[in-house]
């Protein structure tokens, strides 16, 4: 493995922030491996997205604006990525550890007969071997795994694990040729937006999450959303809140939901069962607001405020807003 390829994830004309984190990391890895840093941008708006990606220290950006990528699920993207990898040669492919990134990763790893390291929070080159560090077993164990010697390796990277740093000369943009002789079966018949415009929960630098203690759906909008907005973050929820139907499952953090690692995690009215803990324990700073000073969440928080969230959160929102003004 010599080169590095970033698979750029984007939606609705916006590149996911994690893509810039991957681009930054790709430069460092490529320099250590003595290769080039590439990116692959596919689908609607690929050209414009590539232009913005040029702000990051990549060497070559491969683009394909092809309706098939948007009209058929996964398969066309895999064919393009495979073609790009074949053209580039032995390489490590970096993808975000998101719903879509994992889908692509498993497929391309099998297609290229590549090893796969998942949910990596640190990556290093040791001699010629690429190693990744990942939390496993819901964060109870931290493992370091190596890609064995092969032409290709695939690594999914946890959002927020690395900084995004613009820089370097603008990358060369090249068009990817359409793979020939392919037919696709999984047709995307419609797209429905349920929570458009919301910051991706996994990438948010701050998460304000609510649980059973909120008592219903309204406080997620009236109490948590203003605080999350003031802090520049996103709203999340415990399983109890999602199961009660107060929020969509896409906001659920924990086992069977999303895993997040923001700099700041504010848990409001969340007891902190293991189920929830595994999805947020690796957050930078954890603040718990809870009526019960003995709730499990107090065991893995940095600050515990025992009190009435309905009184505390609006005051806190005001303080944060005032500090920013």
């Amino acid at each position: 493995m010599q080169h590095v390829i970033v698979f750029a994830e984007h939606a609705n004309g916006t590149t996911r922030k994690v893509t810039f984190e991957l681009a930054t990391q790709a430069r460092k890895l490529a320099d250590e491996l003595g290769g080039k840093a590439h990116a692959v941008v596919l689908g609607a708006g690929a050209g414009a997205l590539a232009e913005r990606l040029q702000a990051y220290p990549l060497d070559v950006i491969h683009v394909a604006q092809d309706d098939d990528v948007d009209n058929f699920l996964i398969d066309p993207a895999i064919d393009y990525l495979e073609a790009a990898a074949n053209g580039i040669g032995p390489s490590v492919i970096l993808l975000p550890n998101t719903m879509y990134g994992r889908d692509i990763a498993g497929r391309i790893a099998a297609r290229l007969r590549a090893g796969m390291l998942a949910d990596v929070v640190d990556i290093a080159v040791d001699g010629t071997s690429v190693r990744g560090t990942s939390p496993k077993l819901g964060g109870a164990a931290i493992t370091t795994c190596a890609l064995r010697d092969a032409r290709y390796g695939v690594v999914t990277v946890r959002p927020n694990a690395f900084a995004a740093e613009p820089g370097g000369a603008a990358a060369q943009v090249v068009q990817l040729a359409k793979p020939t002789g392919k037919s696709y079966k999984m047709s995307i018949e419609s797209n429905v937006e349920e929570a458009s415009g919301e910051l991706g929960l996994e990438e948010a630098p701050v998460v304000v999450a609510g649980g059973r203690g909120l008592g219903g759906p309204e406080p997620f909008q009236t109490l948590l959303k203003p605080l999350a907005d003031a802090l520049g973050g996103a709203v999340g929820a415990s399983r109890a809140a999602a199961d009660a139907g107060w929020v969509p499952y896409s906001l659920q953090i924990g086992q069977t939901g999303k895993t997040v690692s923001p700099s700041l995690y504010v848990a409001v009215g969340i007891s902190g069962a293991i189920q929830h803990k595994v999805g947020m324990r690796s957050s930078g700073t954890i603040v718990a607001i809870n009526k019960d000073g003995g709730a499990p969440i107090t065991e893995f928080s940095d600050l515990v405020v025992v009190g009435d969230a309905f009184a505390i959160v609006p005051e806190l929102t005001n303080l944060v807003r005032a500090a920013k003004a």
Partner: protein
Amino acid sequence: MKIVATVKLVPDPNSEKRIDPQTKRLDRSGAETVLNPYDEYAVEAALQLKEKLGDGTTVTVFSMAPERHKEILRKALAMGADDAVVLSDPALAGSDVWSTAAAIAAGLKKIGFDLVVCGGLSDDGSTGGTPGALAEHLGVPGLTNARHLECDGQRLTAQRETDSGYQVVATALPALVSVTMAVGEPRYASLKGIMGAKKKTLATLCLADLGSDVPAGDDGALTELVRVGPPATREKAAVVNATDGASGARAIFDFLKQRKLV
């Protein structure tokens, strides 16, 4: 129509797991082995399809697991699956995503299927790569993160969850689908189901039965474990008893300021 639900067996996610700092191994004391919770949704989705499709549709549960754990699959049989197959072979130890998917794919080809239903992730390894890798090895469409599955025996339509909503995706069978928890809570086994499960077939396959020449287990793995250790420990939390909203808010704000988070 033959539906196969794939399940992994994992240490009980509801048990507190820790790495023994001396041995650097998982302290398994008190952690039972159970069905991966994500895969219980796969079994549930498969059973829902069977109910809709009626007679002539069967649900087989398939797992790659050590022989000693195979009785755990009775839980899926008690939920309503018709039979179970466990792929068990000492040579499978040390499998990674590549060699796991290769072995399971060989097993699924051996038993045959029209539709494979997977959970989205495993609770222990949590790579999330296996459903996609499996679809690739099987050479069938892989419809991921699905809910609201509709199937007429020829075509499958599902809502595929995205970060901001869902897309409606349709595909011809044979296919593989991975499901999210939005398919519905896995059903509890009834007493009748539990009694009936004891009489259902739980077959074992070994690598030699598959006629596959793909290197298995650690020999086929393209990754290797270098190190394992416990996570960084967090200092004990500061605790503030807030008598009113303003004092609680002030305590948090000052703390965030001190950590340069505001």
